[in-house]
């Protein structure tokens, strides 16, 4: 088991290097000159002299391979450079924004768990009932409605029309409600259907029949046996979604003026702030890798046969 985990951790290195390489290439093949983008954003009329100076300052006048190796070396030293725009350390700026994003991601997962587990379970147990139909409808909306649109709808009804919640910003739990609901709806759609299918599958298993013949109470069979087993894929999904949520809050942060690092990334893209874009992508890649790793280890812990197979 230890060697399996060791191998998995070692495999992270080439993946991160690949992510750095892809990011580097993608940014450099874009026709936009970061020096020019910087000056345009600053309302400075870009003279050739100024452009040359900025390019030199940003190290963009170096040959591409030099720029690439410098990037890799710096990242290995955990030096993510300074933002072109603010001249402040990117790692500090990202760190300052992570709590806001983490708060949004965590509250969305909590909300999704609290809603989808009972809903998924009940809609399987009471198949084709009203609650099942409701969960199907909710999942349909959750899976198909674009998040920015849902965000606008929620703001319009709950903030503008009903005046129950603030439109934007971060500060209190009230500010957290609408963005969390927006983000969690898609998760609810997935988990509800996942759990429903999983419970239905378990209900076909012979141990359920056996338990019933033993005269166990239905409630006990459902909660202690069926749900316990059926919930496994949802745990896997949760782990996988944490990374997705941390990086997928971009649109929601933009709509709700949530000061997280998704919004920071959007601004960086508009300003061609290369150190920020690069750091964000690498950070996102690492986050996904880490979440994958945790889920794999968790699964391994739950089913040690994986290490033999894998």
């Amino acid at each position, binding site marked *: 088991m230890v060697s399996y985990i060791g191998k998995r951790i070692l495999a992270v290195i080439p993946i991160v290097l690949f992510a750095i390489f892809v990011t580097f290439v993608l940014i450099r093949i*874009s*026709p*936009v000159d970061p020096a*020019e*983008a910087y000056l*345009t*954003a*600053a*309302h*400075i*009329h*870009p*003279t*050739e*002299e*100024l452009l040359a*100076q900025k390019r030199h300052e940003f190290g963009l006048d170096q040959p591409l391979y030099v720029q690439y190796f410098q990037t890799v070396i710096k990242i290995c030293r955990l030096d993510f450079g300074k933002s072109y*725009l*603010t*001249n402040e350390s990117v790692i500090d700026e990202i760190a*300052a*924004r992570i*709590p806001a994003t*983490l*708060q949004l991601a*965590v*509250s969305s997962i*909590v909300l999704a*768990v609290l809603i989808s587990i009972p809903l998924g379970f009940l809609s399987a147990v009471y198949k084709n009932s009203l609650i099942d139909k409701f969960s199907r409808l909710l999942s349909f909306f959750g899976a198909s409605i674009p998040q920015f649109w849902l965000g*606008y709808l929620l*703001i*319009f009804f709950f*903030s*503008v029309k009903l005046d129950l919640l*603030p*439109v*934007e*910003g*971060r*500060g*209190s*739990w009230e*500010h*957290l409600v609408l963005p969390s609901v927006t983000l969690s709806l898609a998760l609810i759609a997935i988990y509800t259907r996942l759990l429903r299918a999983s419970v239905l599958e378990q209900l076909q298993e012979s141990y359920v029949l056996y338990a019933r013949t033993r005269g166990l109470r239905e409630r006990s069979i459902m909660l202690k046996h069926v749900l*316990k087993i059926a919930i*496994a894929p949802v*745990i896997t999904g*949760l*782990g996988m979604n944490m990374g997705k949520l941390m990086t997928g809050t971009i649109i929601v942060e933009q*709509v*709700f*003026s949530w*000061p997280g690092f998704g*919004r*920071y990334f*959007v*601004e960086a893209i508009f*300003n061609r702030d290369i150190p920020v874009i690069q750091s964000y992508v690498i950070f996102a890649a690492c986050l996904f890798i880490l979440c994958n790793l945790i889920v794999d280890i968790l699964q391994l*812990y*739950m089913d040690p046969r994986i290490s033999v197979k894998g």
Partner: protein
Amino acid sequence: MSNGGKRAFLLMVGIILLVSTALIGCTKQEHATTVEQGASPAEKGVTISWPRDIGQMNPHTYNPSQLFAQSMIYEPLVSYKEGGKLEPLLAESWSISKDGKEYTFTLRKNVKFSDGTPFTAAIVKKNFDAVMSNPKLHSWLGVINVLDKTEVVDEHTFKMILKKPYYPTLQDLSLVRPVRFLGEAGFPDDGDTSKGVKKPVGTGPWLLADYKKDEYAVFTRNPNYWGESPKIDKVTVKIIPDAETRVMAFEKGELDLIYGEGVISMDSFNQLRESGKYGSELSEPVGTRSLLLNTTNEKLADLRVRMALQQGFNKQAMVEGITLGLEEKADNILSKNFPYTNVESKPVEYNVDKAIASLEEAGWKLPAGKTVREKDGLPLELELIYDKTDPIQKAMAETLQAEWGAIGVKLNITGLELTAQIKRRKAGEFDIDFWYNYGAPYDPHSFINVVAEKGWGVSEAHSRLPMKQELDEKVREALASTDEAKRQQLYASILTTLQEQSAIVPVSYIKKTVVYQKNVKAFRFPANRDEHPFDGIEFGE
């Protein structure tokens, strides 16, 4: 689920709950501060939104400091007013030597910085020195390039000596950056403000009282302000990057004011205006949306073709249809509310018959059965490049494509990223491009500068005009001229020539918009495009 699985599940749920409770707990405290800072009518505060964080509030640098906020804290020597009038601000008066090289400013007495320290010639020089220690950073600005040295004559007299006469010196000094004044306490120990300031200390009517990056900034009245204090107590700026959210926050009453250029969509502006629930206004033109025609292209080198293109589209209908009347049809390259631009010139009217006749006369004939005109076997095909993120440019490009298609001109339209568009303009790799002047207080001198100076793409695009050399000489003469009447005459000649040559086709005048709640009174647009709009604003019942 095995026991292990159960434990893992419980552990995960537990961690999630703990972290979220802790995070929500943290934010409750922040909430208390935010609510305290929220402006209410009783406090006579105005809450506005801005798409980006206000930045570091450094008077001598650019990004990420936001111009409107810088102008609330820092003041210039000379202020730019309606119609380009220059009025005293921190300088009570000034004199210019006959050769146009020496500017002597008598500074206003009894001016204090927000920390109570006096505003003197010494601190003015210190600020100039800080700016001039990084001349390359500011080389885009004319006055920096001609500034030779500065002197403290006495406590309230400051002198600037230029290497050569440059008439827009005072206009350049009225800009929001980089020549505004930071108090002694704001300077870093080494005096180099390009790396940052200790704190934003200015002489302006406002001071930054509270600030949370990416969330809000609160400005309150500067108790040491030398002039008439603002009528409102504070200005709260909420950072809202999304335009639709901004509109909804306004409708809910969380914002008193939405102000700026393109900060909300034209649809939203009209919807708010037509609801009748709010006040709304449009500013005087702040710039002209034009088409830049590249005369180095053989087809566009012919005046008759350029004129046909200008006559060949219905400007009025296009502007009304696309900008919903929020921009005004432009007949002149520069609107008449700038200095020296009130020049009588004949607008080029929409006339399809004349356009077709011009093209025929230029030799571009429509072969039977074809839709595109040809000359010597070559089709009359042109490319228009536009900023693909700008919905107005895109819609205008498509309209032009249809309108010019009807007179036998094939227009290919290419959407580009803004910086790619600028790059192609500078390289001369375009036939037609959208182009804008800079607005007040940069114009008209910045405009004529790019008409003559190479490096911006405009002068290069005009290089095939028959009177190009003469035009450039007139520009240089105007910029160095110390004679007001002569300057007016030169401007008139330059603008008339450009108008007649149709190498820059004015399309529409861009305006700033504002929508405000009914309790906001006496709103005035600043004459300087980059200044804040809070002078004189009142809060009524």
